[in-house]
């Protein structure tokens, strides 16, 4: 992590090379009487990608728009590269933004859309043209340069929106659910292409998404948001290893969870829950020798089998009614619904988290 130089006042001295590209402190905002942002702290280093992940209504889009300057904060500060920007209009912040439905200018060609930013910021026509050519090559759309947005497919428009936002070489790129408007078929390749591009350019980026898979693949750190606060901001690996509380664990959807108060023996606790990655749940008969390490064993009743594309998800009802998911391969013998079996989780896979 870079050392944080103290932010100078708005319009002050140039940013130091070490200053974080984004530093949000205690951002608060209420809309229509309802508090939407309730004290957000977020920092972003150069070249880092942070994903804002959460359900609808958690405030992630509002936070993004506040960083962009399209929304004013009630309290708190936003600093970019060491400069306070929270009272500056979007035009004076060094940002680029990709909107959910792209907001391409319908009456301007692809090239003119991309040139719009540089021209607006005072570059001369020749420079703007050169920059546009550069970006058209980057997104591989030279052939469509003089077409209007209506003539393009969804994926092509998305790339143009990206190129337009990058044309001004912004310090910070902001993206509002950039892949959600695309057909599922294109989402995966496009987001991997984007991640590649981002790494090459070293572009700092904040992405809003509700898709967990997308957040994990694209981001260096994921900020999980609920009700206007960031519950946890950590790398995908860290989130997988140690979600900070029950709500985050449930939202990520990759764990089986057991209430610690309902278990017996060494597993019992006064509060909190035990979680384990889904793949750690096994049939007692299948599990390898545990070398004496204590494993959790309990009976469970199978509710139903859900054969997916990659594997079969078996939904079990545990001893206290909680839902547990077991993954089996398609070639494994199918279990009968309603049957009761013994399940086990190895001790190393278990982790205790608070409520």
């Amino acid at each position, binding site marked *: 992590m870079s050392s944080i130089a103290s932010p100078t006042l708005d319009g002050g001295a140039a940013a130091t090379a070490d200053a974080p590209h984004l530093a949000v402190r205690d951002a608060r905002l209420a809309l229509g009487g309802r508090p939407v942002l309730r004290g957000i702290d977020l920092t972003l280093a150069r070249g880092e990608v942070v994903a804002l992940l959460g359900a609808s209504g958690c405030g992630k889009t509002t936070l993004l728009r506040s960083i962009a300057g399209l929304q004013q904060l009630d309290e708190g500060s936003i600093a970019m590269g060491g400069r306070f920007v929270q009272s500056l209009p979007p*035009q004076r912040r060094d940002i680029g933004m990709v909107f959910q439905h792209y907001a391409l200018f319908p009456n301007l060609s692809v090239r003119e859309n991309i040139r*719009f930013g540089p021209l607006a910021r005072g570059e001369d026509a020749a420079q703007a043209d050169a920059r546009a050519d550069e970006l058209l090559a980057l997104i591989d759309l030279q052939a469509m340069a003089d077409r209007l947005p209506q003539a393009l497919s969804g994926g092509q428009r998305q790339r143009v929106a990206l190129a337009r936002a990058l044309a001004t070489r912004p310090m910070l790129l902001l993206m509002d659910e950039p892949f959600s408007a695309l057909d599922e078929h294109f989402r995966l390749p496009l987001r991997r292409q984007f991640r590649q591009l981002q790494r090459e350019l070293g572009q700092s980026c904040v992405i809003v998404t509700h898709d967990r898979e997308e957040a994990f693949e694209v981001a260096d750190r994921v900020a999980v948001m609920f009700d206007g606060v960031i519950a946890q901001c950590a790398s995908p690996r860290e989130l997988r290893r140690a979600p900070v509380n029950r709500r985050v664990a449930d939202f990520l959807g990759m764990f089986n969870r057991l209430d610690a108060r309902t278990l017996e023996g060494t597993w019992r606790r006064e509060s909190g829950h035990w979680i384990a990655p889904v793949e750690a749940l096994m049939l007692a008969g299948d599990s390898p020798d545990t070398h004496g390490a204590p494993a959790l064993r309990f009976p469970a009743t199978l509710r139903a089998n859900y054969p997916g594309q990659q594997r079969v998800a078996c939904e079990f009802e545990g001893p206290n009614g909680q839902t547990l998911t077991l993954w089996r391969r398609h070639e494994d013998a199918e279990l009968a619904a309603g049957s009761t079996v013994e399940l086990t989780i190895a001790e190393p896979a278990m982790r205790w988290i608070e409520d």
Partner: protein
Amino acid sequence: MSAAQKPPVFSAFALAALLIAVLVPMAALLLYGLSGRWDRHWWPEAPTLRWFGEAVRDPRVQGAVLRTTALALASATLALICGALATIPAAIAAQLDPHPKAAALRRALDLIALLPFAIAPVVIAISALELFVGRWGGWLPLPLVYVAVVAPTLFPLIHKTLQSALAQLNAAALIEAGRTLGASDALTIRRVLLPMLAPALLAAFLLAWVTAAMEFAIANLLLGGQLELLQPLMNSLRNANGHQAAALMVLAFAGVGAVVAGVAALTRRWTAVDQPR
């Protein structure tokens, strides 16, 4: 759209009634203008183009047409400028700015668009006659008064036309995109929004022009004997020579029809030039 079934009986009948109500009077007028006489049988006699020719060549008609066109043009221009300046920013600001003042402006404009329906043209004409011509007629030129009085009555048309075009535009998102790119709102409006609204502005202007040209109450009562406009002229001609008057009316409506058809073509263009989905 589900498969085109036959329309229910009632609506088919209504459609027929509509077509009759519109076409029969127009057809009658056309026949009258084309016939030498139509007072002996239920069919017209002596087809001739003479009335049309006379109507076109009559200097009184030409004068009235010229005056009407010019005054209607001025009214439409005034109405378009004031109306567009009011409607367009108001609609966009209502989407962009959560401030209650924005919603209040929209409500105020909707009210102003309703006023010409509540204050009838007769009333407007008489009141304006009393005030601007009677009391202050000394230093207020009559054509100016006419233009200024007709213009507000055209606002509802302009307001409605522009609002429906703006609704399809998603202008707020475009302005925000412009802001994040470093452009002032004025630049985005100039380079993106106005070009996109151009067909709608033209359509609104043409409709306003035609509506102003066909105006009767204010033209008759306010301008009285001083300036003769098209509709009052048609009214006085009908007593002198019905056929010629009919020919003139048909010509006038052919003009109106051409403009309306042109506007319809324009409207189709701007609904077809879609937004990126």
